[in-house]
Structure formats: C-alpha cells, structure tokens
C-alpha cells in the first residue's frame, strides 16, 4: 500500500497530470477583469519576505493590500510553492529577466506571492537572486488566495493547500488582466512574457 503511494509520488508528473485532469474545466476565480482587487480581499494582509531577525525588529508587521495596490500599477503572480520545480526554474525567472521591460511600461512593482511562510519565501528569493527586481510576499494561511478563490488542495502531493499558478495586471486596485493556469504544473498563460503583452 505504501509502495503504490511512493511509486505514485516518484512520478510527480503523474500527479500533476492527474490534477490537470481534475481541473481541466478550471472555472474562475472570484475576481475577473474589471474587479476591484482591494475590495474583493479587504482586511487581508500579506507578509513581506523577511528573515526572522527582520521580523522581530518589525514586530512581525504585515502589509495590507491597499499599501501594495492603491494608486500603483502592479504586476502580480502567484505560484504553488517556493523551491518547487516550475516555480523556481521557469516562473520566477520569466519575471526577473523582464523587469526592465516592465519598468519601461510604467509598472511600479512586480509582486510574487505564494502560500509559504515569509522566512521560506525570503530564503528562496535570495537563492533565486530575484529580490531586487521582485517583491516577494507570503500568504502563509492562504487568506489572500482564499478570498480570490485561487486555492487548490495539493494534499495528494503532500503539499497541502496551495495557490494556483496565476498572474494579473492590477492598476490602482482594478484588475486589467488575469491569467490562471488550468493546472498548477502548467506554465503558459501566467509567464512574465505573456503579461508583458497585456499591459
């Protein structure tokens, strides 16, 4: 019994395609183009990526969404998990290398968010050398993604509740473009290259 399970997990691609099958008719988030992101997820905060010491000195402060989005042109993308394959190897780099193009188009900040604690996200961002270009935030309890209905249960892959892979262009809190992958293992519509064309 344990062997069948471990055989399954050895082929994470099987899981990914399985999850893809379940989500083939991926519907919608609770937000869409035109929604106001701030009012859809009011009283939600994110935790800026930080080391523990930085957390202590800031008294573990969190960042309300208004601070991130109000009056700003923001490109934001979410992914299932720090240190995982597609997230590390493709998703983050697709934004990291396009940062100058984003700035040229008037984007104020590029944000990456995942259901991880802020310390893990911080270590990961530093490892990817992406902290200068991208602001990383943790949604440790998934409250942000839950409000947007962008959560997916990856317990079968022993990852627990996570977020879908998605991206959005948000102007003063209003969603101008929204891309959600059909399955978290896929990487098509949520890349930095795609959203650059949508701005």
């Amino acid at each position, binding site marked *: *019994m*344990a062997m*069948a*399970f*471990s*055989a*399954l*997990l*050895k082929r*994470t691609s*099987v*899981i990914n*395609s*399985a999850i*893809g*099958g*379940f*989500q*083939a*008719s991926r*519907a919608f988030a609770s937000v869409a183009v035109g929604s106001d992101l701030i009012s859809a997820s009011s009283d939600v905060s994110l*935790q800026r990526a930080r080391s*523990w*010491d930085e*957390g202590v000195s800031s*008294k*573990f*402060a*969190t960042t309300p969404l208004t601070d991130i989005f109000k009056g700003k042109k923001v490109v934001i993308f979410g992914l299932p*998990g*720090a*240190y*995982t394959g597609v997230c590390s190897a493709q998703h983050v780099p697709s934004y990291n290398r396009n940062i100058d193009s984003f700035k040229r188009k008037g984007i104020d900040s590029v944000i990456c968010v995942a259901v*991880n*604690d*802020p*310390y*893990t996200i*911080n*270590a*990961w961002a530093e*490892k990817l050398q992406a902290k200068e270009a991208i602001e990383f935030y*943790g949604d*440790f*309890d998934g409250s942000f993604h839950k409000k947007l*209905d962008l*959560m*997916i*249960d990856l*317990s*079968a892959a*022993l*990852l*627990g*509740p996570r977020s879908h892979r998605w991206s959005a262009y948000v102007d003063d809190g209003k969603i101008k473009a929204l891309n959600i992958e059909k399955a978290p293992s896929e990487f098509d519509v949520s890349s930095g290259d795609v959203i650059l064309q949508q701005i």
Partner: protein
Amino acid sequence: MAATAAISVAFAARKLLTSSPRNLKQPLSLFSSQKRSSSFLSISSAPLPLRFSTLPSISATISVGDKLPDATLSYFDSADELQTVSVADLTSNKKVILFAVPGAFTPTCSQKHLPGFAAKAADFKAKGVDTIACISVNDAFVMKAWKKGLKIGDDVLMLSDGNGDFTRAIGCELDLSDKPVGLGVRSRRYAMLVENGVVKLLNLEEGGAFNVSSAEDLLKAI
C-alpha cells in the same frame, strides 16, 4: 485515522496508476470538476471521502511506551528523487532518533537544533542509533533547500510532514495561526528515541522552546 487516510490515499493512488494517461487528461465524469475542495479526489465507487489535511482528529499527546502511529512522510534522497516513507518502515526493527522543529528557515531550528544533531551524528551512531531524522511541517522541497543552505550532510534525514498528519496523530501540533509571525500550524519541538516503533524516550518542549530537546540532552539520556 491516519491509517484510514493512508488506505484512502492508496486507493486513489491505485486508481490513478491504473488509469491510462489519456484518461487523466480528460475531465472524468467520476470526478466532480466543480468542487475545488479537498474532496476532489473522491471517487463515486469509493465510500471513503479523502480529506487529508482537514482530519478533525483529536489525538492525545504521544508518550513513552506508545507505539508511533503510522503516517506518510516525504523527502528528497541523495539522488534528488522525491521519496515517501511510512513511519512504520522508518522505525521497525531500528533504533531511530526523531526530532521535530517548528519551521525550516527559523532561527532556533536553523542555528541550534538541526546543526546540533548533525554535529553529534557520529556519537549517536556509536550508541547504536540507526537513523537520525528531522521532521517538520514543511514540504519536501523546502526541507531539501533548508538542509542544503545549512550544509547539513546526509547523517540527518530531512523528513517532510507536509500535511501535518503525523504531527497531528501524535498530538504535537503547535498552532501559531493567529500569531503575526506567519507560520500557521506547525509541530512542537521535541526529540525522541524510538525503538522498533515504540517511544522509549521523549523530550517534548512547550511550543518552540529549546530546553530539553537538544542533541546533547538526548545523548546524555540514551
């Protein structure tokens, strides 16, 4: 309850393995595509609902003399392959040191607890310990990256209790959900000596304190 979940998982696993790849890509009518809750794996022919991370079990805290409940843990092996291991396989007919940390990339865990056990690995082996394992409610990717960042060798097996099932089954949850630190539900810090699946020694901390669960403390006691 962990056993039921394991059986349910295996059932689903067998179903997924025996389905042809073509089927996996189609939205199967067996699976409700509307519900995106954790029951998305429930199959109409199976009476068992699959809700791993939301098992409402209330387990008594483990104590000396108890047999460890079974659960599935995951890790990356030295060939960088994702593996799973059951607690039963990990501990049967072996002398195992199992110590838990609240979180990878947090200070006490990173600076004292884990390095302490890595440094004393040889001493533990000399006392007949077969395996030293670190367990945390983090996923296996994070455990691997954390181990690499701290340059921990292969003397300590980094185990992920990704859904917190094992931690819950032994009643050692540390609920930090309402704290601004941003950690959610984790494991209390502990160190235990397990012989053939039975707890012989248990040094369990309150929350994340670091008073009795260090490598030195355990080495003195075994």
